[in-house]
């Protein structure tokens, strides 16, 4: 059969010579290899203690953004849900009432906003679709839970801390403190 590449090597089927049958040179060679590896630096990252740096385009779990005054940016337009190829996002819109101007940036807001993290494929299309800079993919990436229910993240889980009232929490979440 003609080989696809010309890199094929025929198998050497000669009987072993005396040195090879002694087995010891091969043993010593192997032992020198393992010994040399003792002084190599292990590439291990001790994960929970230390993490690898992510590239700037890393896509982890979502966050819902607030503006500088701590108001929710999301207006429940639904573009993210439309863009989502995994159909992981649902929301319910509501109208802002009198006196809620400090909570919501515009007249309409998301009363309920849920992302099913088991459906999500972390493609980032919601981020691209959002006209209000309201949804972003963060660097957190290892959610864990005891029940499937727990993977449906609501507004409580998604909203970032209020920069006005919970500035310390926000700094901690951003890792800038």
């Amino acid at each position, binding site marked *: 059969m003609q080989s696809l590449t010309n890199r094929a090597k025929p198998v050497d089927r000669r009987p072993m010579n005396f040195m090879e049958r002694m087995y010891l040179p091969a*043993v010593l060679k*192997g*032992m020198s*290899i*393992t*010994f040399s*590896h*003792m002084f*190599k*630096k*292990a*590439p*291990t990252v*001790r994960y929970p203690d230390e993490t690898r740096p992510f590239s700037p385009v890393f896509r982890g779990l979502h966050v819902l953004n607030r503006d500088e005054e701590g108001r929710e940016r999301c207006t429940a337009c639904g573009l993210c849900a439309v863009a989502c190829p995994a159909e992981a996002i649902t929301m319910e819109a509501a109208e802002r009432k009198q006196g809620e101007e400090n909570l919501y940036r515009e007249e309409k807001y998301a009363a309920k906003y849920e992302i099913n993290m088991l459906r999500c494929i972390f493609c980032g299309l919601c981020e691209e679709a959002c006209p209000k800079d309201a949804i972003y993919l963060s660097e957190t990436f290892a959610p864990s839970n005891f029940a499937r229910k727990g993977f449906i993240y609501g507004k409580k889980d998604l909203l970032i801390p209020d920069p006005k009232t919970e500035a310390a929490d926000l700094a901690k979440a951003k890792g800038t403190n």
Partner: protein
Amino acid sequence: MTLLAFDWLYLVEKLVLIAVIISASLLIAMYATYFERKVAAWMQDRIGPDRAGPFGILQPLADGGKLFFKEEIIPNAANKWLFILGPCMAMLTAMMTSAVIPWGSKIDLGGREIALQIADVNIGMLYIFGVVSFGVYGIMIGGWSSNNKFSLMAALRGASQVISYELAMGLSLIALLMLTGSLSLKTIVEQQMSHGNLWNIAYQPLGFFIFFVCALAECNRAPFDLPEAESELNMGYHQEYSSMKLGFYLFAEYINMFISSAIMATLFFGGYDVPFLDESTLNPNIAALIGIAALLAKTFFFIFVFMWIRWTLPRFRYDQLMDIGWKKLIPLALVNMVITAVVVLLRQG
């Protein structure tokens, strides 16, 4: 303090020495399990256990504690009495060998000279052989009483392996005996220490090599770990064991490794001798301490070599194992013996 024409302090000092040596070998065996994992990790470019305590040094305690808390299972079909006897035998024989090893010269406590050896019997080497070959009973009884075909198969393998390699081991030591003319380990060490004599490795390199390979096989260490061949025999002779009974088997393996390293250091590498140092010029107590440190350093080196080999070489096939034992090592040991005999005769005549 002499009562009934017997020096009772002698009894006390021996009992203390036994307690110290037993606990020291248990401790070393415990940390050998830790270093086994560490060495394996380093050789495979990993880090190894580092969670329990700084650098993971509490790992052996955690492992031991885990084994103690595991459920104790004795299979219905097992012979209960023998099933319990098996690990006890393994542990007992592993510990017994340490009795004749001289751990140092002697220390001086208030005018009383205490030899750092439990028993300086004049058949020291024969005693070691006897006890080591006794060790196969632990494997045999454990494998047999489990009433499980894999365990039995592993036990048979272990028994035939140990018996085969004991022959070559004995033959390699006969050549050594021709040089030393004594079976007492103390005398052998003192000969190596005396002026103008080199360590026995210089006179018996081939003998040492044979002894070393056989020691690997006797300890059931890789590449001769056929009784524990996981891939072929599930687990080996201790498949049915759980809890601390399993722990005893695993532990006995490490004690065996420690003791056989100490024996190799004693027989071929001058025991507690420090090269280029005349011990007689020093304070005897300091000399004894240096000697103990030297012996332990040599022993640890051999333990490391055992691990190094384990994490380098793949396991032999069973027919290869028997082939090496009977067709390679025994003829080699015989040739070594004959050459030594001729040289000794020529030098005498």
